[in-house]
């Protein structure tokens, strides 16, 4: 009998110790939600973004020599806290994004959420954060509307569509003035979503400023079975330039359909889209050549201006994703590193303190093209930079602005039958 009691007591003590141990281990963890489209039409990009956040978490959690990146040399945050990434999938659906954000904050107890790639999903998910007074950090969503809401707990790294659209029209002005390009008309093709519509609106506004006439305005449903009518509409209007906002599979379908009807504008410039995704370009092979797009990272650009990004890519990202960073995914990693720096500066896990630091301080960011990150009221990164690249033989050559240029643009685009 006594032996039984002793055994039970020992078991209870061991159990209690074990539970205490778990509790202690849990205490030394900072949970961060990673909310991305892991399934659905944008899943390729969502998986890349998630892998990027996981890579940044690995960099923070270990102590690594030879990286000139904040938080790399020390193990964890606040003297030993490990970052734990809690994955969530919003499938590209705003309603799912909202409920997943609620789950992450309320049930998982995350300190902050990073996401959500699709602007349409970021909008409701960040509204949940704002109501709960929790932090929401956004890497790649580019809809300008996101930072026009005057939210206090929302911070975004990417340049907005407004910034990119102005850059596109600056480039067209440059081509017209310096190269006599004669670009007078514009067509827009974009997915009929929060992202696509805002990108197109900003494109139209920027075009109006330089007197570019919009002759085709073509929204389409993402995940379409074909884009025949859409491309046919563009072809009928025959604009000199096209601004595109099509993600993943839609981007490759758009390019292939243009080839099928044997039509190209003089130039085609893309917002953050399938253009930026190396996997999509690889599948398109030569058909993707000569298209242009706004980017804040490319391996070619990084060699000269962001060497640390290449090191992080090789050590942490490539083993997870089996491909190179793209503009979108890298920015999600940057946001985790910025959050990590803010937590370190705050010295404790106090949301208000960390928010204050995010809102007021400038952060060193060797993984950003500008090398720095700072947020204005509303949460937009005022240091956001992007360049215009043109793809050729799976290489993103920087063609504008002059400061970053490493190749001459091929203009107009080489016709389909002459490649």
């Amino acid at each position, binding site marked *: 009998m006594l032996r039984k009691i002793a055994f039970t007591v020992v078991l209870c003590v061991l159990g209690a110790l074990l539970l205490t141990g778990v509790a202690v281990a849990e205490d030394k963890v900072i949970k961060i939600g990673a909310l991305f489209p892991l399934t*659905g039409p944008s899943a390729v990009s969502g998986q890349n973004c998630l892998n990027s956040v996981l890579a940044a978490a690995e960099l923070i959690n270990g102590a690594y020599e030879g990286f000139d990146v904040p938080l790399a040399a020390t193990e964890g945050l606040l003297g030993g806290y490990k970052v734990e990434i809690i994955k969530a999938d919003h499938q590209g659906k705003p309603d799912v994004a909202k409920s997943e954000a609620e789950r992450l904050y309320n049930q998982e107890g995350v300190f902050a959420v990073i996401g959500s790639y699709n602007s349409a999903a970021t909008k409701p998910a960040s509204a949940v954060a704002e109501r709960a007074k929790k932090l929401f950090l956004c890497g790649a969503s580019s809809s300008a509307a996101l930072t026009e809401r005057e939210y206090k707990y929302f911070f975004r790294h990417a340049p907005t569509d407004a910034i990119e659209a102005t850059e596109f029209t600056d480039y067209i002005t440059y081509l017209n003035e310096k190269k006599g390009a004669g670009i007078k008309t514009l067509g827009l093709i974009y997915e009929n979503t929060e992202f696509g519509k805002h990108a197109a609106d900003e494109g139209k506004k920027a075009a109006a400023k330089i007197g570019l006439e919009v002759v085709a305005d073509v929204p*389409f449903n993402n*995940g379409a*079975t*074909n884009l025949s*009518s859409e491309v*046919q509409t563009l072809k009928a209007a025959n604009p000199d330039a096209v601004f595109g906002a099509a993600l993943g599979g839609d981007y490759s379908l758009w390019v292939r359909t243009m080839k099928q009807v044997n039509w190209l504008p003089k130039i085609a410039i893309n917002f953050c889209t399938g253009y930026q995704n190396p996997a999509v370009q690889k599948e398109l092979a030569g058909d993707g050549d000569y298209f242009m797009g706004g980017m804040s990272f490319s391996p070619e650009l990084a060699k000269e201006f962001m060497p640390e990004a290449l090191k992080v890519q090789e050590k942490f990202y490539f083993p997870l994703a089996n491909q190179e960073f793209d503009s979108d995914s890298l920015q999600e990693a940057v946001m985790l590193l910025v959050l990590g720096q803010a937590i370190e500066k705050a010295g404790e896990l106090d949301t208000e303190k960390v928010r204050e630091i995010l809102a007021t301080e400038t952060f060193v960011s060797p993984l950003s093209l500008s090398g720095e990150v700072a947020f204005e009221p509303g949460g937009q990164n005022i240091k956001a930079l992007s360049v215009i690249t043109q793809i050729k033989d799976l290489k993103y050559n920087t063609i504008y602005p002059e400061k970053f240029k490493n190749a001459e643009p091929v203009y107009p685009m080489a016709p389909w039958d002459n490649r």
Partner: protein
Amino acid sequence: MPPPFFREVERIMNHFLQVLFDGLLNGLVYALVAAGLSMIWGVMDVINFAHGEFLMVGMYVSYWIGFFLDVDPLFSWIASGAFLFIMGAATYRLIIRNSLGKSAMAPLLATFGLSMVLKNFCMNRFTPNFRLLSGTVLEGKTISVGGAILSVPQLATAAFALVLLACLYWMLKRTRLGWAIQATAMDSEAAELMGIRTENIYLLVFGIGGACVGITGGLMTSYLAVYPEVGSLFSLIAFVVVALGGFGSIPGALLAAIIIGLVESFTGFYVAAVVKYAAVFAVYLAVILIRPKGLFGW
């Protein structure tokens, strides 16, 4: 050089022709996707919610055969058709047969579950990446008809669709097997009393349904990227085609698919690209209200 008026007329006619051919070609592809669904629905009164995922699996089979063995989709459709025949038959044997007779919703929910399993399996094994076969025999080839440019891979798929639908129709109308299928569809108990092994007919119908969509998927890899979500919208359109054409009717599926293809194409170009699918589903609603059994329903 013709005067500007004639040039404008020619331009308008060229666009019209292009839109017309786009609609026809897309419609024929929809017909082939819908044919299998129509047979299963018509004969067994079972809605196969995994039909879009069957298409996706057919595309993956053809893609991987092309990728690893360098076999062109012009030939690999045989393998994808055979694979999906077996998969269709297995679906009946392992899932549908066990869910029949339990509740009206049971087979529907079972196939919905199957669609989730297939989609997530492919997502997990092949990643969500878009995969496109390069260097296929027909890649990039086009022909000019009037002022319209037709994609040869799409044309080949449409031609296959016509031949296959003709074979299916012939089989249903002219062979003992086809009569047995029709008899089973009309009254399975009576058919059984007449010596028809309805179990085998159901198995075969699911197999044929799978093979149709497998062949379509196999051919489509010559011009369309494959990814885990690729079948979603195709299957929705296939449901519309089946409802419009009439459950179980092959000529109905063909005619309905061409109507859907043309509605999509003309609305997309002459009204607005963004409403083309809305127009397709509006047609579906109209059919449900006016003629619920479809144009040629059994």
